[in-house]
């Protein structure tokens, strides 16, 4: 059956190789695409994580994940995206674990009215993978009597099974139509300030244009850098804070091409939720990785701005 032309994926440059969409072989159940969005007193948010064309063709589950949560007391938003590393066998579970740990940690810090210790946040997110691997994915015990023993944490095994990149943004309202965002990351997922159609990168590039080759590997949790300083961004009405995994960031480049234009237009105002997922279904040459975009608009406190 032919699909209605209106739902064909956006084509950026040369379309990718056509490929089958196979059932992912995994437990527990993991949908191809997740879509979320809501509005609060101060913000509108949208996010979608979409399985890439390569994972669809291979029957591999979506390894990207996202979470966006409101802290009711402060009106702050916790936004997280994670990209499970391909070579880690169960990294889709790792990505989900990381998102949940970050959300739980930051909700507790906000409840307590404390300052965020960003390095500790990342260490806890990394450790969640180590404990998850030890408790839930423990190798069979050769000795049955060892069944009740506390599982031994094995960070290397956790890395092999569950490694995941992460970007965290904590966004606090800062007066009508304004907000401040603090962002940290481990790995190659990233963030932008989309201002008047221009994509302003919030993190320094991992490889410069002069670098001959792409980096040999991606750093990812449960590895944590020795130091971590959050990036701060001030958002005004009309600005959009955007987080994206490399499946979006790589084809986007510096944002001045067709994909940058497509998403700048698509995110100018909060789109209908399924529209973001449809935009992310784009086909672009060999760019066939999972892709996730999480977008936040300040200004929901202005009644005229209600989307």
């Amino acid at each position, binding site marked *: 059956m032919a699909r209605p032309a209106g739902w064909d994926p956006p084509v950026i440059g040369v379309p990718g190789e056509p490929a089958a969409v196979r059932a992912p072989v995994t437990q527990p159940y993991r949908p191809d695409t997740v879509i979320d969005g809501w509005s609060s007193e101060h913000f509108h948010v949208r996010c979608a994580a979409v399985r890439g064309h390569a994972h669809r063709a291979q029957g591999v589950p979506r390894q990207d994940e996202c979470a966006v949560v409101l802290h009711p007391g402060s009106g702050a938003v916790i936004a997280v995206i994670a990209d499970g590393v391909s070579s880690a066998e169960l990294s889709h579970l790792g990505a989900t674990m990381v998102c949940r740990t970050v959300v739980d940690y930051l909700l507790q810090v906000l409840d307590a009215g404390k300052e965020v210790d960003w390095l500790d946040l990342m260490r806890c997110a990394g450790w969640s993978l180590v404990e*998850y691997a030890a408790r839930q994915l423990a190798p069979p015990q050769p000795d049955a009597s060892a069944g009740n023993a506390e599982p031994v944490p094995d960070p290397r095994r956790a890395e092999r099974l569950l490694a995941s990149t992460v970007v965290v943004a904590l966004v606090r309202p800062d007066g009508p139509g304004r907000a401040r965002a603090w962002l940290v990351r481990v790995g190659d997922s990233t963030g932008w300030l989309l201002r008047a159609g221009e994509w302003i990168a919030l993190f320094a590039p991992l490889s410069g244009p002069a670098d001959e080759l792409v980096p040999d590997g991606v750093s990812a949790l449960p590895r944590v850098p020795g130091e971590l300083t959050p990036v701060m961004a001030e958002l005004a009405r009309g600005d959009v804070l955007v987080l994206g995994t490399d499946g979006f960031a790589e084809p986007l480049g510096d944002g001045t091409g067709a994909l940058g234009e497509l998403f700048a237009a698509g995110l100018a105002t909060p789109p209908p939720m399924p529209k973001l997922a449809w935009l992310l279904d784009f086909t672009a040459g060999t760019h066939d990785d999972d892709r996730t975009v999480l977008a936040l608009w300040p200004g929901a406190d202005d009644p005229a701005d209600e989307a």
Partner: protein
Amino acid sequence: MSESSGRVLPIYMVADESRSMTPVVDELNAGLRSLHDALLREPMAAAKVRFSILGFSDDVIVHSALVDLRVTSALPQLSVRGGTSYGAAFSLLLDRIPADVRALKREGFAVHRPAVFFLSDGQPTDPGDWEATYAKLTDREQTPTAPNIIACGIGEAKAETILKVATRPEFAFVATPGVEVGLAIAEFCAALTKSVIKSGQAIGGGEAELIVERPDNFKMAMDVV
């Protein structure tokens, strides 16, 4: 160019064409044909690979420059001639790899570290000469596009030599004595095919350190459901 055309992995198959390869060159050609067939069945994987075939003896013949195997009707045939000059092979790679990477980047591709699959059935006939060229080729300071070299020894090739050629010990393969050389070549080609199709995102430490102790504030989130 503001958008990247995607990532590609340049792969160089460097095969020994010395006369001692005569009994097995047909197996090697058959292995390359099945690699090509496998890639044509996996066009998404093939799209991310550029493949070159070099045959070395006393000199090197570029049987195929770096190409997209999706648009190649048939792979060239390897043949046999002369001795086993490792130096000639590494010298040509040192010449071609940086130029090939520059050309791919001009086309807008982000380029993975190139991979060389090196297959030999004998000891080098230029001992003492090839090592300096090899050192320059694989030194990432001198040659930023230095490749990973996966080395496979069959027949008379010695394990210690193959270990010197592979850029990591786990990249060195030597056929078990007694195993038919044709079978070893078939296995090598199967491993090559698998590597080509499975090349993807890998874990790399970078500046980050593996966390080894439970942080004081750690609380387990609800288990993943």
